[in-house]
């Protein structure tokens, strides 16, 4: 009687299937609309990266790493990318990179405004927070189910899955960064007659930028992880190499794919971390200047406190 096999089983799976099918049937234009910008962005970036000859791209990435982080990171980037090219995975690596780049663009466009909204309104945060909790605790593998049902299979639905998996840290860190801005700074802004918009652009965002960039680093890493997993729903790239290697019991192929993934992940991590840390080390003037600053090579701050103090 208490045998679990004899229990009446609630047909939840069937309900969900019917529900999702109904959604897919009736809201097809909506999902197509969501897919469209992702698809456009993804194809554009992928075509671009594939079209540029690889030696040029390697140099460009190395320079980028040098400006964002350090000479060491630049050297590491240079060597890693050459390795990826010479193990025959350049094209796959660029596809994975365009998947990640697409995700970053969409995450920044959506995540930062949502984060700002959450920082300014406690009500918005109480709504968004549980959603983020669910998104972050759900194993990335589980994301694939609704994505396949609503968006189908392939690289573009994979891109959607990557975006959904990667956006939460950016929202969290943006919210946190703005909320952690010194109360006195915000008060100073208000006391001198700042509008809400001025307060955001003049005070809150510039001061929250290091934290937001930290969130960007997390988002990039999440996107990297997810870009591999979405190979299971037919997304192309390095993940597919590993998956095929596993499927054919071709250990060599799987390992080569794995090496390329690790190298790419490390490059992305070092570069984005460099961005975030650099901003902490040397404050700059406003968003645009901060990004410009991050793209410029580092130099030491002139004039120490001691020498300044003596001239008082």
């Amino acid at each position, binding site marked *: 009687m208490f045998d679990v096999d004899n229990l009446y089983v609630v047909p939840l799976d069937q309900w969900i299937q019917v529900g999702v099918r109904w959604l897919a049937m009736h809201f097809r234009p909506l999902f197509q609309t969501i897919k469209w910008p992702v698809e456009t962005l993804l194809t554009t970036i992928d075509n671009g990266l594939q079209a540029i000859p690889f030696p040029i791209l390697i140099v460009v990435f190395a320079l980028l790493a040098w400006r964002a982080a350090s000479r060491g990171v630049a050297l590491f980037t240079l060597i890693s990318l050459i390795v990826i090219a010479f193990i025959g995975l350049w094209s796959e690596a660029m596809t994975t990179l365009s998947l990640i780049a697409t995700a970053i663009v969409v995450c920044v466009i959506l995540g930062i405004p949502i984060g700002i909204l959450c920082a300014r309104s406690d009500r918005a945060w109480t709504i968004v927070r549980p959603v983020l909790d669910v998104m972050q605790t759900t194993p990335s593998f589980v994301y694939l189910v609704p994505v396949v049902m609503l968006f189908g299979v392939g690289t573009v639905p994979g891109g959607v899955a990557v975006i959904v998996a990667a956006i939460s840290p950016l929202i969290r860190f943006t919210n946190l960064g703005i909320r952690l801005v010194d109360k*006195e700074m915000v008060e100073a802004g*208000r*006391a001198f007659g700042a*509008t809400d918009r001025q307060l955001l652009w*003049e005070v809150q965002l*510039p001061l929250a930028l290091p934290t937001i960039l930290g969130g960007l680093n997390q988002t990039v890493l999440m996107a990297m992880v997810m870009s591999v997993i979405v190979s299971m729903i037919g997304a192309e790239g390095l993940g597919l190499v590993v998956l095929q290697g596993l499927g054919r019991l071709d250990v060599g192929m799987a390992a080569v794919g794995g090496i390329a993934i690790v190298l790419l992940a490390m490059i992305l991590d070092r570069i984005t971390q460099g961005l975030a840390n650099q901003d902490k080390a040397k404050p*700059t003037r406003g968003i645009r200047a901060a990004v410009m600053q991050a793209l410029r090579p580092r130099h030491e701050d002139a004039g120490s406190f001691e020498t300044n103090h003596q001239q008082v």
Partner: protein
Amino acid sequence: MTDRITVDGVYKIFGKSPELALSQMKSGETKETVLRRTGQVVGLSDVSLAVPAGSIYMIMGLSGSGKSTLARCINRLIEPDAGRILIDGEEITGAGEARLREIRRTRISMVFQHFGLLPNRTVAENAEFGLKLRGVPAGERRKKAMEVLEVVGLASWAGHLPGTLSGGMRQRVGLARALATDADVLIMDEAFSALDPLIRSEMQDELLRLHRTFQKTILFITHDFQEALKLGTRVAIMADGMVVREGVPQDIVTNPGNDYVAAFTRDVDRARLFDASSVMVESSPLKLGDRAAAKTLNRDGEPIFVVDDSMRVLGVVGPQQLTRVAGGAAVQSLMTKDYETVSDTTKLSAVANLYHRGRPIAVVDEDGRFMGRVDPLRILSRIGAPAATPSQFRGVDA
């Protein structure tokens, strides 16, 4: 002097339902009762003040007394729950959002305890912050910023980030930022409390200097009674969200009015609070050429000052010499230059420093006219704590 800021029966309740707490407060319940019954914290309770234009008005209180809350109610960083606040007769408490912003941009500026400078902007950019918010063109606001940085002595630091400056210098930047908007009301919230004692005293002198030049109305929040006495034209002492004593510094020290205030006055350095006029005794001077008067002058054994027709001190004669003058001797040949003069506003610490036995001190007004003579013994009684009672005080002056 007209009143620049008027605070009229202002209440501030912290909590979710201020109305309930407010009605209970108004029906005479204490802060504690209201907290126990409603769970609402009373921040300000029926505060009324009048800040004269061009004064430095000190709001002194310990932490939790509501002084910072009151300051923030003036520019409505905190919304008062009841009462009215007026600037030059205009009700701030009723102003709409746009008007309030306008007032904050042009009428009231603020200096913060921890400076509130943007660490990512240079000193000049911080100084021009208020002007930037107001939409002043870049060139014009930079010019103004450099002007005010010049005033606070930081012009050469314009291109540096605040992080490279010492605390005192950072607060000068804060001050420059507040001055740059040309607001005539300055709210200074514990502006010097985070500074080292030496720098703090320097900044206080600097503020007094700036105040003489700019004649702004300054509302200065402090927990330091000495600071309140040193800077204040008037002082309001707050405790538990209420004003417990208000008046000019000397008055508060001589007549605290209640035990709470008296506790603060005990440690006051009276030598730096009271000036020469408080220890002056009136003594008739001997006018040059008025020999007849020498006979009628009071001879209590004290020296008599000799003045010219416009009451300027020329010299001093002792009792014996005075007798000889009365007997017909020439004053010029008998008087000596063996005296000191102090202005009536000279602090007692400086007066005491000048005193030597047998060397009388004359008190003169700002035009150099003779007013009276310092009684050295009165210096002692004036600087001793506890202070003399008001009746004794008046006895001295009379």
